[in-house]
């Protein structure tokens, strides 16, 4: 029984993280993201290989570290995978480390706004918010 349960629920992780696994902030007002296929994820955090990529906040799209300017083409390529009528429902989930700076997030937001991908979800865990600023 257990075996079948896990077989059915297993979803293989599609993307290998090249940034350090972001420690998501905690929040209480969370909403679940529905329709996983309509979600494109942007990771923000420090690179694992800091000698190569530098120590600042990095953005990961698909499985590599990208720059702000690549976001537009990333979102377009995600949108191309879906029917045009589904595109307005597509959400961009930003999985960012608590220690990232708002400047980086804002740059992403501006990029998304410019290409009209307006639905954004700041990925969080549900938990105690006082842990966020430690």
């Amino acid at each position, binding site marked *: 029984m257990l075996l079948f349960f896990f077989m059915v629920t297993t979803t293989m992780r599609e993307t290998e993280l090249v940034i350090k696994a972001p420690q998501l902030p905690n*929040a209480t007002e969370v909403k679940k993201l529905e329709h996983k296929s309509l979600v494109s994820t942007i990771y923000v955090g420090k690179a694992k290989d800091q000698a190569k990529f530098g120590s600042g906040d990095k953005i990961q799209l698909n499985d590599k570290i990208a720059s702000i300017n690549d976001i537009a083409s990333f979102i377009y390529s995600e949108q191309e995978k879906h029917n045009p009528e589904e595109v307005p429902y597509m959400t961009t989930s930003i999985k960012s480390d*608590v220690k990232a700076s708002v400047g980086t997030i804002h740059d992403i937001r501006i990029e998304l706004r410019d290409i009209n991908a307006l639905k*954004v979800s700041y990925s969080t865990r549900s938990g105690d*918010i006082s842990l966020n*600023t430690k």
Partner: protein
Amino acid sequence: MARRENSEINAGSMADIAFLLLIFFLVTTTMDVDSGISRKLSEKPPENYEPPIIKMKNILEINLNRNDEMLVEDEISQIADIKQIAIDFLDNGGGVGKEIDGVPGTACTYCNGNKSEKSSDHPNKAIISVQSDRGTSYGMYITVQNELLSAYTELRNRYAKNHVKGKYAGKSYDDLLLLSANDKENEDLKAVIKEVKEAYPQIISDAEPTK
């Protein structure tokens, strides 16, 4: 010719195989329920767009600096207080609401605030503006957003409990959302949720961060 004895397959190792498989799936399962604070970005303003003039009293200004300190209306505040400040601001109801479809706005009949002249006119005019620094930590930003959202949720819960009529009377906004998650096609429920949302629309703006 003597038929061979119907030899049984040795099933003793079956359990081991099943067990190994179980462990394999246990390890690879990622139960990541993707949840988060969802927001809708504002559309890109057209070129040479002039922002409308908004009375200062209808804006609650929150500033975050790079040391994760917070100013609310130019006074240093703590995270713990911001929810109440936001509720007082949104729920003030000191004037009339904005015009909707040519119908002039009316005073907020469901607000419990102080009706102060100095604070917001109506929940649908009240704007919360969050200005952060580029160096503000993401954790701090999310914390503030979360507190603001919880202020809205509290007001919506109260509105839904006291002012929704009909078969959904007495339920809080959270209850309605839960019901709606299980019953997506229910148009009545959707209309009620819309009504509650419009009573306290979420207007949080993110100002351009300071450098």
